[in-house]
């Protein structure tokens, strides 16, 4: 599982690398774009995801002790928090859609505070925003699917204190997705906020 996670680090790493290059090229546009994002929703989602990591860790702990009912309970809590995160993401995405900030033919840049910034450069920021958060959200949707599968496995009595590897490695995957967001949040939402 760690081998998979290491390649996932480099998969997201490629996105972070592209981000770093363009952020250094177009720092003003990235600052302007970042100011369009809502710290409240981003911060709330960070807390929700950290909470879901806690419930996942507790699910693994119950698996180690073979407490089947508690495993299912914590997995359901993790799924609920995962959906809360995706719900907030939906709210944020639809705001961007209505504000014409989704890169494409309807993209329009007319923030009066940042009219000196080229719209095309802000478009690059939002391309990174949607691809990076979109790939992250896709990982979360897959994670929710894995947890539903785990619940079925626990229900079929295939998990006990001697064999809980599926729960353990799914936990590793979920925590990794949490770590990606820990870096995404400051890098996307908090650029140049002190200006």
């Amino acid at each position, binding site marked *: 599982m760690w081998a998979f996670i290491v390649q996932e680090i480099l998969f997201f790493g490629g996105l972070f690398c592209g981000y770093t290059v363009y952020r*250094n090229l177009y720092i003003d546009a990235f600052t302007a774009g970042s100011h369009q994002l809502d710290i409240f929703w981003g911060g709330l989602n960070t807390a929700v995801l950290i909470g879901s990591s806690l419930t996942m*860790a507790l699910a693994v702990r119950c698996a180690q002790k073979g407490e089947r009912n508690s495993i299912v309970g914590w997995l359901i809590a993790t799924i609920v928090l995962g959906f809360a995160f995706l719900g907030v993401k939906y709210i944020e995405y639809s705001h961007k859609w209505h504000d014409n900030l989704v890169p494409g033919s309807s993209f329009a840049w007319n923030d009066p505070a940042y009219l000196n910034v080229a719209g095309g450069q802000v478009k690059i920021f939002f391309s990174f925003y949607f691809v990076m958060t979109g790939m992250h959200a896709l990982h979360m949707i897959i994670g929710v699917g894995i947890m539903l599968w785990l619940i079925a496995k626990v229900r079929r009595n295939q998990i006990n204190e001697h064999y809980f590897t599926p729960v*353990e490695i799914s936990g590793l995957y979920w925590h990794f997705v949490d770590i990606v967001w820990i870096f995404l949040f400051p890098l996307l939402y908090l650029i140049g906020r002190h200006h």
Partner: protein
Amino acid sequence: MSDHHIVPLKIYFLIFAALLIGTVITVAIAFVDLGFLNTPVALIIALVKASLVILYFMHVKYSHKLVGLFAFAGFFWLIIMLAMTMQDYYTRGWQEPLPIPFLTQ
């Protein structure tokens, strides 16, 4: 991985609290002008938070050293990729392109 080390509940809740506090600090410090240090400070806090998740939630602290080596290698290779890419972009334009005869003829 399967050494059956059961981490006390208290540790999980302490790490959870530390991660939340780290998030609040990240947001608060983003509004303070630290000059060029704003991004490095944000990244250091994120690294500390990620380390807490890796060591405690992902049990690397309680696992075989090989697991820790794997985790470290992943991030180390990421740093190589970022460093190599940025040294290229930063040094472009430092110098006039060298004359290469077969390209200019």
